[in-house]
């Protein structure tokens, strides 16, 4: 099959062009052994099918980041294969100089090439005139002008694919900038530039005095919107559907076809409540589909909007300073932020980080900065009867502890090379809804393929442990250590230890124990801090390997216990006064 490789700088509208060229059948794959993703789709034209591959955005063929390295490797692999390939080099027409740098390097590859200058509308606004014919003549390959967002020029790309040819343009590599200067002198004229409304907004959002409040405002807004929409989806659509339609259907079917009580218990669980039954087909479906999925869906939707508008890079810049103190930098803003909602997408988002050190700190912080949404709801329902003063206490302690932990990890972990922030800030742009939805679809599909099977495995494992008596053995032998240290009744041990397995609801299981408010706060903090939930744990294993996962989990357990013990002692003193 003929292959079309989309290649270009980041922020040149590559994904919009990809989405315009391909149908709904898109696949994202990881490069073997890495977490760098690239997307594939198909284009049908004149009875021929082309495979369209969207490579990660790169500035140059000399890699400086992991993503660039992979893009270049992919380019090499495809060009060494037997398939016919066409390079579709997408350029930002408003930044010709920088973009031509990559084009000239691609020309050196001696592969069939088509050059696309995107953003023809912005070119006009910026007072730039480009002589496309002349550029085509100089580069000796087809040059096409597009406004991908309004589909202008897309048909021309498809029609002229057959004209793709190997350029005979020649130059010496060390003189590339001079050569680019000459080309620009020939083909580009800049008349005048006037400030647009979007330029002004851009200025406001990168100025520290206005930018920081805007950044925090947007963070809070996203948090509120994500929470509101997700909770609405859960309580009005997904939960009712699960309980009235799915569960009834499942029970009817299984009661008819399965006679073995043991098998029924594995599949349906013991308890009628879907979150507590721990059946493979009840809790195993309920957690990923009803509890986690709505958060993933809404958060990725919001994130996609910020990304496509161009705000995400500005947000990273604003938070860079703060995150530096914790051993991270601007790029980690997203996973940390996600941790406020659900830890699963947060861990998925840490794949973009480059060094192991950053990954450890970012995963830790995402896990312990705040309880996940279901936990938050449980803590609120248990502690709120005692008044707002007590309610704020666990959340404040958890947040401060995370900041302190970040500082500590930054000091303790061996210093490797800190990756420096180096980020292009794209101009604000309108969103292209189909591209946004396509990206959302790919991310959701990844979640179902990556995370959901892990949750299944986890639940089967728990069932096996329960049936074989391992759970009881752990509770009887180790439970007392925890309850004694934290000053809690002995019976709570089973809840604490099984919290790992059903972390999201375990806090609710504290209700029947008649704990004092002091004990409730300590138990809540401990349950939030001491271990990741089962879905998150397996996801960390998948993303970062078993060794790193065990290290993180072990640290969390010891650290969570220590912090909860200290808090317990402090609260004791405070309650005496």
């Amino acid at each position, binding site marked *: 099959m003929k292959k079309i490789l989309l290649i270009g700088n980041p922020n040149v509208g590559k994904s919009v062009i990809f989405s315009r060229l391909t149908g709904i059948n898109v696949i994202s794959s990881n490069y073997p052994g890495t977490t760098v993703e690239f997307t594939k789709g198909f284009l049908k034209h004149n009875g021929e099918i082309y495979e369209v591959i969207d490579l990660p955005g790169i500035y140059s063929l000399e890699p400086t980041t992991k993503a660039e390295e992979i893009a270049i490797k992919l380019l090499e692999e495809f060009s060494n294969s037997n398939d016919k390939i066409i390079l579709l080099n997408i350029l930002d027409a408003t*930044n010709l100089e920088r973009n031509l740098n990559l084009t000239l390097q691609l020309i050196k590859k001696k592969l069939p090439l088509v050059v696309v200058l995107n953003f023809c509308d912005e070119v006009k606004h910026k007072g730039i005139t480009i002589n496309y014919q002349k550029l085509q003549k100089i580069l000796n390959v087809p040059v096409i002008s597009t406004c991908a967002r309004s589909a202008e020029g897309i048909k021309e790309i498809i029609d002229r694919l057959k004209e793709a040819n190997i350029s005979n343009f020649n130059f010496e590599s060390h003189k590339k900038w001079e050569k680019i200067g000459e080309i620009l002198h020939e083909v580009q004229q800049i008349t005048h530039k006037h400030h647009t409304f979007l330029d002004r907004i851009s200025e406001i959002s990168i100025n520290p005095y206005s930018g920081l409040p805007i950044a925090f405002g947007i963070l809070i807004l996203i948090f509120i919107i994500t929470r509101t929409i997700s909770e609405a989806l859960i309580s009005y659509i997904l939960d009712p559907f699960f309980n009235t339609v799915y569960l009834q259907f499942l029970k009817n079917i299984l009661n008819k076809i399965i006679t073995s009580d043991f098998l029924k218990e594995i599949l349906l669980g013991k308890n009628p409540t879907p979150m507590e039954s721990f059946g493979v087909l009840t809790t195993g479906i309920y957690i990923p589909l009803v509890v986690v999925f709505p958060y993933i869906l809404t958060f990725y939707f919001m994130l996609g909007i910020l990304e496509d508008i161009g705000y995400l890079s500005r947000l990273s810049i604003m938070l860079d300073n703060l995150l530096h103190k914790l051993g991270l930098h601007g790029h980690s803003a997203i996973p940390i932020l996600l941790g406020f909602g659900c830890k699963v997408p947060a861990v998925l988002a840490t794949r973009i980080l480059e060094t192991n050190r950053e990954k450890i700190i970012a995963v830790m912080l995402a896990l312990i900065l705040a309880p996940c949404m279901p936990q938050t709801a449980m803590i609120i329902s248990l502690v709120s009867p005692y008044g707002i003063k007590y309610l704020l206490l666990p959340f404040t302690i958890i947040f401060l502890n995370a900041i302190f932990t970040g500082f500590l990890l930054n000091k303790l972990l061996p210093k490797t090379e800190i990756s420096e922030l*180096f980020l292009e800030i794209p101009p604000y742009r309108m969103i292209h809804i189909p591209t946004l939805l396509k990206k959302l679809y790919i991310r959701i599909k990844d979640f179902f393929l990556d995370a959901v099977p892990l949750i299944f495995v986890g639940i089967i494992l728990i069932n096996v442990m329960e049936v074989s008596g391992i759970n009881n053995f752990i509770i009887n032998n180790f439970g007392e250590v925890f309850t004694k240290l934290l000053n809690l009744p002995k019976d709570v041990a089973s809840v604490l230890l099984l919290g790992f397995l059903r972390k999201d609801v375990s806090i609710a299981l504290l209700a029947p124990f008649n704990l004092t408010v002091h004990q409730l706060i300590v138990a809540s903090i401990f349950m939030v801090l001491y271990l990741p939930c089962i879905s998150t744990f397996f996801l960390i294993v998948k993303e970062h390997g078993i060794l790193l996962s065990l290290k993180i989990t072990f640290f969390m357990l010891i650290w969570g216990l220590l912090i909860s013990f200290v808090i317990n002692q402090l609260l004791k003193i405070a309650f005496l006064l």
Partner: protein
Amino acid sequence: MIKDLTQLESKQKGKIIEIPNDSKTLKKLDALGIRVGIEVLKLSSIFPKGPVIIQIGNTQIALSHNIAKKIKVEIH
């Protein structure tokens, strides 16, 4: 007068006369078109030691404080 990018005032222009010489940073800077001899406009910086935001042509770029400190410009 010669200053580094962190010392430059916001909205001030300068011509780059020196960039860091380790090959990794150099590659990154070159890929974005940041090189000796070109005009740069400083847009803002995030205090106190945050990223410095500059404009080259129509491209806006945020550089970490450490890199910005190593880029020297001449102001006319």
